[in-house]
């Protein structure tokens, strides 16, 4: 079986063959030129949130939790959020976490709007602060993902806002558009 897994903006292809007695072999392709073969991996579940792999004689403990559209996995202190691209495509909810953000002004978590230092019609540059929000008692600036003109301000100071809410629309300037093309 071949699987396409998404970690951040990277797609990793895994060819996996299950064998008897909880053995498997796999080939992992990070890119066309970067492939690693894993032969004779033994695996097993230890508990709801723990699986064990034995790879080349080394024991690996992985801690796992199912989350919306993916799993978080901790190995050796490293944390990964991994999604099954094909499954996401099937359920038509393909929305890897890295797809959002860069082009939108949205808070990364539930927060309260503290300050909106821009006005309708203002021209901003990429990186300019357009909204200041506060969460867990910490102020964070949300910045313009690209230069352009403020065409909509959807919030006021004191509003409670959620991830995914588009707080401000910025229309790209002609010059920017030309540069991009």
């Amino acid at each position, binding site marked *: 079986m071949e699987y396409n897994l998404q970690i951040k903006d990277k797609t*990793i292809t895994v060819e996996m063959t299950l064998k008897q007695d*909880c053995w498997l072999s*796999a080939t*992992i392709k990070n890119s066309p030129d970067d492939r690693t073969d894993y032969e004779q991996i033994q695996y097993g579940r230890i508990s709801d949130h723990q699986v064990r792999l034995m790879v080349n004689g080394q024991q690996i403990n992985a801690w796992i939790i199912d989350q919306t559209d993916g799993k978080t*996995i901790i190995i050796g202190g490293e*944390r990964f959020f991994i999604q099954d691209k094909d499954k996401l495509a099937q359920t038509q909810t393909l929305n890897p976490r890295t797809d959002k953000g860069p082009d939108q002004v949205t808070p990364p978590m539930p927060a309260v709007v503290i300050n909106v230092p821009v006005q309708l019609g203002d021209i901003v540059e990429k990186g300019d602060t357009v909204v200041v929000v506060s969460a867990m008692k910490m102020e964070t600036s949300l910045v313009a993902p690209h230069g352009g003109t403020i065409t909509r301000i959807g919030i006021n100071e004191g509003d409670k806002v959620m991830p995914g809410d588009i707080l401000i629309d910025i229309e790209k300037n002609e010059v920017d558009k030309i540069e991009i093309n």
Partner: protein
Amino acid sequence: MFKKILIANRGEIAVRVIQTCKDMNIKTVAVYSDADKTALHVLEADEAVHIGPSDPSQSYLAMDKIIGAALKTRAQAIHPGYGFLSENPEFVEKCTQAEIVFIGPSAQAIRKMGDKITSRKIMMAGGVPITPGLTGSHHTLDEMGQKADEIGYPVLIKATAGGGGKGIRIVHSQEELSDACESASREAKNAFGNPDIYLEKFFPRARHIEFQILADNFGNTIHLLERECSIQRRHQKIIEETPSPAVSPSLREEMGNTAVTAAKAAEYVNAGTIEFLLDDQNRYYFLEMNTRLQVEHPVTEMITGIDLVRQQLEIAAGNPLTLTQSDISARGHAIECRIYAEDPENDFFPSPGKIEFFKEPGGPGIRNDSGIYSGCTVPVEYDPILSKLTTHGETRDQTIAKMIKALKSYIVLGVKTPIDFLIDILSSPPFKEGDVFTNFIDTHFSTWKPTEKNRDLACLAFLVDEVCKKKNRSTDGDEKKQPPGPFHTLGNWNL
């Protein structure tokens, strides 16, 4: 000694205080907001009183509700922890009026030390060196600019009230000054209800070294050695250790004596901390005094063998210190890592949510101070500190190695934590060499990304988890029969 006390706090520090109370057979009363109905500090206490909605201003900062809860449960004293009401002189006065002992310093001492300007003046008068900068309040922007020009950029804008990294801005040039003052002032007003700010010289390569002090009501004041707290992100400490790699025995003695002098100048009673800045020329300056138990107190406890909460309770109960300065000595080295619910890849933005699974490392020389458990919720309303992991070893190198090991076995599923970031800091050559300073992270880790050494393995684990789940589902029809755990069907794999 008190028979029962109330803890006016939440999370790991409330649990920490309860631990010592249980050791001393003192009954404990927890208070909780709507968000904390099943929080760990509530479960661990003997009694628990609901004090209001999740918003801190209506619960953990609501002085009358907390004092009401203490009166109702007949608690004789209140431990404030850190944050919230711990450095609020008005609260101390209200406790006194209600004939409840406040486990901490007097309202007057808090007031004097809580205002950075007043404390700078007191320390100057007491002969304690302070950082170059302003010593008046209500400065105009012009005055700020003038002073900045005089002492030279970069300068630090600070709230005269508060602490915990709130209301602080580094300003590198005159152009930034106005915006920074405005933003710091607003943050200060939100956090502490006081918009006043002042300005002092910023030392980019300086260390943050603080001394723990204890003072009783009988004029006895001692220090419990230093803590090096230079590793900070967003002006908030994340790794602390003791002893400091930069402090020689003679410097330790000199700074310790100065800390005791400073505490005496403040007419201070109970546990407190004198924060110093140590520049790259080994000159030190008084920064501020924290008039409460510090987050990072466990490292001091581990190397001195002294329970600081017990000392706080003894002093508050009116007992004299039984320790003298010569009783205080360090054994080994201790490091603390703060485990926040935050995303180190995304500018340490908070990451509240449900802790689906939690497993702490154990074994010799490892201490966990935590406020969470598997299944609990980390509310969005409060500081994101989940727990503190402390290791103690014979040498600094051993203690670092033990911390890296412990972090690798520290499992939090459900919210993000900076564990991988902490491991990378602890493993970095400058940290290992002890070459740390307050903007260490900006200097060495501003573009940090996880190394993802185990990415291939994580992909395999992802698929194995799916495979195991499918296998279990396929045996679900037969409920009585235990589905064979994969390892029950294992062959012998290596011999």
